[in-house]
């Protein structure tokens, strides 16, 4: 990479809280946010990682009066927090927003369809005005007053990881000075029913990387990182948390919903991230796994890790037992957790684990670990369609 890419701000909201302080405490105390849905209107009785705030509460926090989709409310909260955390004044800098979402304004759209199923040309157009993924991003861009470059990524579960990667490349190549990158996804009936139709949801709390794992729990949330060039950090004299030292994006090219048994896409993404970071595998301190809790993902990801790391496995854990799988936001959320891991010198536990997957023999991190020399953290995000991404965050 040409110019160094530094992380200078974090913003996050999830089932286990808002902001890094609250979330760190939840992770430290094994406080999972998975439980019954209180705000999502659904007939399905499935555990989910729901943000513990209604849309009205979110609007109050944001001082927003317009009716906008839940994904936008979550995104606005996290993006504002991230920018505030960075203490940056954007004036005079070329700034971009790269945001990701898979559901966009679907919570409003599914209500619109429900009310107007007989004739879709009936109904209030304001209810579908913000359906598109790009509209959600636009709402956030206008709120942050970012105008130089704005776009939206949608690569399923690796979406916000890819937002961060693109943001890093834009800075490295000198197109932009500052990028707010990440993503947001709210729970909605569309995705809950979609995943349910695939029979990959667990009716209990998920157990990533466990032999008895039976599926994932859906979650919701939003997370953004503020990236800046070295020049911005020097000139504005702001703190930086770590740098993005490497990343990889590969396609598994195997199946729409299933990963290949040897985890080829995952393997290639992780390997590429190491190469870009100019690191050997044994220099990775900790992996934040994609670890959804499905039979297929965890086995495939585990195989890929063993191929790459051999017998020198780093500490690793999936944090989805806390937050659920937040789809388009998961890469962003887990990027923030990875950065927190470096900042605190800690590793977070993998909830729900009792026995290793027989084919792997991998035992993830079972307890919160502190005072650890965490120098390089790899965060994995692997999506439907075989879109696999991996990012390495390193001490600066």
């Amino acid at each position: 990479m040409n110019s160094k890419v530094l992380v200078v701000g974090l913003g996050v909201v999830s089932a286990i809280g808002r902001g890094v302080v609250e979330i760190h405490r939840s992770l430290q105390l094994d406080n999972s946010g998975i439980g019954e849905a209180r705000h999502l209107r659904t007939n399905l009785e499935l555990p989910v990682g729901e943000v513990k705030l209604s849309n009205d509460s979110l609007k109050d926090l944001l001082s927003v009066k317009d009716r906008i989709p839940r994904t936008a409310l979550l995104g606005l909260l996290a993006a504002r927090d991230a920018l505030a955390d960075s203490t940056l004044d954007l004036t005079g800098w070329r700034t971009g927003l790269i945001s990701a979402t898979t559901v966009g304004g679907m919570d409003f759209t599914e209500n619109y369809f429900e009310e107007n199923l007989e004739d879709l040309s009936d109904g209030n157009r304001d209810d579908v005005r913000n359906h598109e993924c790009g509209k959600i991003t636009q709402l956030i861009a206008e709120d942050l007053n970012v105008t130089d470059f704005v776009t939206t990524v949608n690569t399923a579960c690796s979406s916000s990881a890819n937002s961060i990667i693109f943001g890093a490349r834009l800075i490295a190549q000198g197109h932009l000075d500052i990028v707010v990158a990440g993503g947001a996804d709210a729970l909605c009936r569309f995705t809950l029913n979609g995943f349910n139709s695939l029979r990959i949801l667990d009716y209990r709390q998920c157990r990533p990387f466990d032999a008895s794992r039976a599926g994932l729990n859906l979650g919701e949330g939003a997370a953004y990182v503020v990236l800046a060039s070295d020049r911005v950090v020097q000139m504005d004299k702001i703190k930086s948390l770590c740098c993005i030292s490497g990343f990889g994006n590969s396609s598994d090219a195997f199946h729409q919903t299933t990963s290949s048994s040897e985890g080829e896409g995952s393997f290639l993404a992780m390997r590429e991230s190491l190469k870009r970071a100019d690191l050997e595998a044994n220099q990775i301190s900790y992996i934040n796994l994609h670890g959804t809790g499905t039979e297929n993902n965890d086995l495939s990801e585990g195989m890929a890790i063993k191929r790459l790391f051999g017998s020198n496995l780093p500490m690793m854990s999936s944090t989805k037992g806390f937050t659920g799988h937040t789809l388009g936001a998961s890469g962003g959320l887990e990027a923030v957790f990875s950065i927190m891991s470096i900042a605190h010198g800690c590793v977070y536990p993998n909830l729900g684990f009792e026995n290793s997957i027989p084919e792997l023999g991998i035992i993830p991190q079972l307890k919160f670990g502190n005072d650890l020399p965490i120098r390089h953290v790899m965060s994995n995000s692997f999506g439907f369609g075989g879109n696999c991404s991996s990012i390495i965050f390193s001490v600066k």
Partner: protein
Amino acid sequence: MDKLIADLKIQIIEALNLKHLTKNDIEDDQPLFVKGLGLDSIDALELIVLLQQRYGIKINDPKEGPKIFHSVRTIAEYITENKSDQP
């Protein structure tokens, strides 16, 4: 049984969007998954819904799928053994 097998072939072609095939292209005992027709896990889920909606049979554990859905004949036999009172 023969009529059920013939009906099933048409229903499978429709449910799985196998537009390039006719019922004469599917043999009664031909393996449906992996080799044979090359169906996959998504198709298995589609067939589970087909059995539920057309024949009122619920398969709770998708892992039973490979045995039940081995061929059109095994599906027909399973339906015959398990179906509730359906027109």
